[in-house]
Every structure is written in C-alpha cells, then in structure tokens.
C-alpha cells in the first residue's frame, strides 16, 4: 500500500505542452505513472508525441479519461485558477509544482476546495516508489519499501532519500509538501494518512526552521503514532535569526519556529533529530532494529 497514489491512479498534466510540463510528463511516463492526458487551452484534440491526448479544459480531460489526479505546471498568476478548475472538474488530488502563488490566492483556494487534496504549491510532488510518480522528483533515487517520508523541501528530500535508498531503506510514499507560506497539505495531514497505512512501518520527517508545522507534527506523532519509529531532520539550524532564506517559511522571528523549539518538540515526542541528512539511515536503523536487509 501507499498513501495518496498507487499504480492505478490516473493522472492528467495541466500545462502538458509547456516546457516543464512536457519534460516531466515524459519522465513520469518513463517511471510508469499512468498519465492519461493533459490540458493546454487551445490545443484540445491534439496528442503529445507519446500519444496522450491534449484537452482544452480539465473538465474535458476528466470526462474523457476518468482521471482523479492532476499535476500542475502553470505560472504563479494562473495557479489559483488552475486549482479551481481541477476542483470544479472533480479532481481529488492536485499536485501543485508552481512556486510563488500569491498567499492570498492560496488562502481562498484552500477555503473553497474542500474534498480535493492539494499537495504544494512549490513542492516536488508525491512518489510511491515502484508504483507512480506525480512530481518532478528524480525517480531513480527512490526504491520501493516501507519508510514513509515527508519533507518541506524538494532537493533536501532527494538528498535524504538517496541516503535511505543507499542504506537499503525503501520508501512507501514520499511527499514533498512544499515551501510556500500557504500549502494544501501539512505534515500532520500526511502523518494522519501514514498512520493508517499498514505498509508504512517507519517515518522520516524533514522539516525546516520557521513556522510551526514541525511542532504540530511532533505533537501529532506523540499522540497518534506510538507504534511507528520516526526520525526527524531540521534544515537551517545554522541560520542566523531574522534572515529570510528561500522558503517563506524559513525565517526565524520571535520565539516561534526556532531550531531549538523544533528540536525540543521532537525530543519531547521521543523522535530523534538527525544532525545531518547522512545520519538519518543510522538513526532509523537504531530505531528499527533488527536492520532490514
């Protein structure tokens, strides 16, 4: 099993003929994802080189293909519109790669699309290794297995997953929840899903300084996931106070969102925090013993 997507998930690509959309569509197809079509207004009726049909609207695409999942490669100003279009057409899970959608657009989208799970924006997507990749992750670094992984960052996820895979820890599903200020799916949302997934036997949570998602995650783990080993990582622990680094979340101000606060929250929940990504497999192995093959 896995969360959010499996090998039967039918996926469409919003922005399938754009530069990034076209590139990643091919990569996802190569990984085995069931890309059943895509949307580019004005190109309805055509097909892409690998044969998948292009539609003018998401509704047309869903009506014709029965897709339930969508991945969005659209410019930031069109992000909210594309998410609403997906929602209106009946999409149940939308992966929003787009970075920099205005926070107020996302506030309104999140408030008005109940029933549709949004991953991101500004995220690398979701992968259930060996089953389906709906995202921009480099598929070859992942390996099918039982570790659930959640991360705010894209490239840091790859760094950590690469280490896990090399150490023999396959993954059930990896979710990059995204770094924008308002995102559709939080650590806690993912943890709730992983808690109910019997094939996920251990978890890695890769957080960052800033915000309070990590603290919320720690509290949830303590309350609801007593039986699965969890290892955490906090990026940006060496950052100076008051500096805004990349992700809007990654700013430390006042007493919230400091590395100390996050490390303490995880420690209180019995979750070890790795100093470096490369330490994660060792900590996981310690928690899991005997070490899997």
């Amino acid at each position, binding site marked *: 099993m896995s969360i959010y997507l499996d090998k039967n998930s039918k996926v469409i690509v919003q922005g399938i003929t754009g530069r990034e959309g076209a590139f990643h569509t091919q990569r996802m197809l190569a990984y085995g994802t069931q890309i059943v079509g895509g949307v580019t207004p004005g190109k309805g009726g055509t097909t892409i080189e690998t044969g998948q049909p292009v539609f003018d609207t998401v509704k047309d695409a869903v009506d014709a293909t029965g897709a339930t999942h969508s991945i969005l490669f659209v410019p930031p*100003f069109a992000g909210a519109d594309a998410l609403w279009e997906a929602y209106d057409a009946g999409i149940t899970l939308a992966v929003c*790669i787009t970075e920099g959608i*205005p926070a107020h657009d996302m506030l309104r989208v999140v408030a008005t699309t109940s029933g549709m799970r949004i991953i991101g924006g500004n995220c690398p997507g979701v992968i259930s290794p060996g089953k389906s990749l709906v995202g921009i992750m480099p598929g070859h670094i992942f390996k099918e297995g039982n570790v659930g992984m959640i991360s705010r960052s*894209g490239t840091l996820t790859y760094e950590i997953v690469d280490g896990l895979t090399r150490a023999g820890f396959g993954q059930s599903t990896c979710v990059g929840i995204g770094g924008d200020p308002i995102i559709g799916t939080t650590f806690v949302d993912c943890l709730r899903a992983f808690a109910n997934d019997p094939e996920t036997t251990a978890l890695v949570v890769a957080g960052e300084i800033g915000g309070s998602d990590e603290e919320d995650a720690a509290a949830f783990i303590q309350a609801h996931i007593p039986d699965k080993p969890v290892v955490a990582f906090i990026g940006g622990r060496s950052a100076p106070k008051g500096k805004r680094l990349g992700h809007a979340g990654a700013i430390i101000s006042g007493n919230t969102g400091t590395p100390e606060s996050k490390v303490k929250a995880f420690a209180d929940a019995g979750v070890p925090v790795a100093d470096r990504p490369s330490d994660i497999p060792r900590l996981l192995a310690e928690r899991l013993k005997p070490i899997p093959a």
Partner: protein
Amino acid sequence: MKLMEYQGKDLFRRVGIPTPNGVYTTDAGDVKAYLTEHPGSWVLKSQVMMGGRGKAGGIKFADDAQQGETLARELLGKVLKSVQNPDGEEVKSLLVEEKVDIASEAYVSITIDRAAKKPVVMVSRFGGMDVEEVAEKNPDDIKKYWVDASIGYSPYIGRRLAFAAELPAGYRKGFPAILGALYTLFMDYGANLVEINPLVLTKDGRVIASDAKVELDDNGLYKHPEIAQWNSESPADEDQAAAVAIGLGMSNYAKLGGTIGVIANGAGLGMGTMDAIRSAGGEAANFLDIGGGAQADLVKKSYNLVTSDPRVNAMFINIFGGITRGDQVARGIVEALAGDDVRKVPLVVRLTGTNAEEGRRILDAAGFVPVETMDEGAARAVALANGR
C-alpha cells in the same frame, strides 16, 4: 515587501481608515512652511524600516514652525540605532502629523495563520506598546478571530472582537468599519501583515490610525505594479536587490557571516548545505538558492554574485537535480569560469539527480572533478577556505 509608515498610511487612506492630518517630506524647509501655515502641536516621525525608532530618538515634538524646522534638520540624515539594528538606519524622510489628544490606545492587526490557513485578526485594548510583550505576559488580553476566507469579513466580527477585547465604548461605533477597511486592504493588496498600533481614540471621540505597519506578499506584488515600484524608492535590503537583479526571488540570496560561498538548488538543500558547512567546522558566507529549473546563464550570474562578496574565499556548489538539470548547471559553471572578469575562488561542486551524468561529462571535459556527497563537499570546502 515591508512598507514604511507613510506608505502604509497611503494605503489606509485608500480604503478609508482615518489617519492623522499631516505631511510627508524629505526637506526641513517644508516642515517650517507647513507648520507656519498650520500652527499647533505636531509630531515629527522619522521614516525608517527599523523598529524601536522612538527609543532611538527618531520621534520629536514641535509646537511652532521654528522648532519644527530645527528638529527636522536634526532628524534628517541622522542614523538611528537600536539593539536589533546595531548598524543603524539613516533617516531620509519625515512624516509630520498633528499631535492628537489621546483618550485611549488599542491594538489591531490582521495576519496569515499558516497552520490554520486563515487570516487571523488580533485586537487588544492595550495599544501603543510592544504587542509581543502583551502576548507573553497576558495572552488573554489579545482577542483573536480566524476569518473564513470564503465568507470574508462582516461587521459582526468587529463588534464581537470589540466587546470581547473590552475596547472602551468610544471605539465601538467606528471599529467594525475600520476593521472592515483593514481587512479589505489585507485582501486586496495581498498583505502578510497589516497592523495599527496604536489605534487611537481621541478625547474628541475620533478613532484614528496613529501608526501603520504593512507587509505585502512579494508573490502578489505583480497585481499592484505601482506599489511594487515603491520598493525601489525605499531603502530595500541590498541582498534582495542583488537577487532580483539577476532574476532570482527576493529571498533567494542572503549574506551571512562566514567565508564559504554557497550555491544550491532549493531552499531546503541550501539550508542543509549551510548546516553541513557548519558541521564540518566552517561558516557559510551566504545563502543562494538558484531555485528549480535554473538555466546555465543563471548559474553563471549566481557564481558572479557570490564571488562579488570579497569575504568569499571558497565556494561550494551543491546540486541535487529534480526540475533542475545537471547539464545546465555544469554548463553555467564552465561558462562562469571562462568569463574574462571572473573572480576565481577554490571551488567544490557536487552534482547528482536529473541529467547529472551529462553534467559530470561537461565538467570532466573542462577538467573538473565533482565530489560525491554533500558531507564530502562541505568538508572539502571548509578545508579550501582554511587554505588547506
């Protein structure tokens, strides 16, 4: 984008929030002229981004034109310093405002609660002081309301908050409309924060925004090009300006305290790289995130931006390709190093993920051997920075 007080009040007036009478100027002569025309008691407020300008001596009171001019000359050009801002900030302009007779001071703000994914309104009857102090000592003195963004603001929210926060009765009539206007500003201009502290009740019964703190979401600024332009008129963060100049986002580049230049793709990996350098015993000179899908040209410009910092004596480029393609990064590095006016520093490159193999071939062809892991790269960079 943080706005200065006078800019925030410009927006306040657009949505109908009352502000004190007054004038904004960069010239002490103007102050004299204005006070000659408008006799009375006036406040001269230094327009700076930093907090604590009152304690730093940036606010003065004048009762006549001559005094006003003298104080204005004193303030303009002065460098205000505070604990948070030890370097200080130069006063380039003043807001001259009527000195109102204060009956009461309240606090009101709207910001985004990221965890709840909702706008949150905060109201307190303790205005005019540090709200974080109030929040810490008497959290119950700050009343909060989370707005459902699909419904939006309706006046009952203001009424409920005014009663709950026990604002003096004089506020009650005007408060729901002022809060509504503040919410309109918050939504229409895409603000991360709008704050009035204090919202003054005057002895003659007016309710006036005495201060204005507005921070807009950079990602929404394209909807307000005329306001985006204000940015260039304000003393913006130099790092932000540098990042924007080469086509990055405002927060993709920040100078830090060390000597090792850092370029990574993705903020998370950037922070991780920074942490790894610290773990290896060094200190990053900067944080530079080239974002996703960077082309060779951006990589080249990023190299040159980082090396323009004279403190940088080694560089670590750490790329884990997803949307970013290793070949583009490699090409950018090779092009940067081939430039005429390039400042070459000892360089460590780590390249993996999407199109990494092609990237490594390009680097190989240029005689460059990348390292395998982040830890290894950090260790090598620290050694190079220490001249080893």
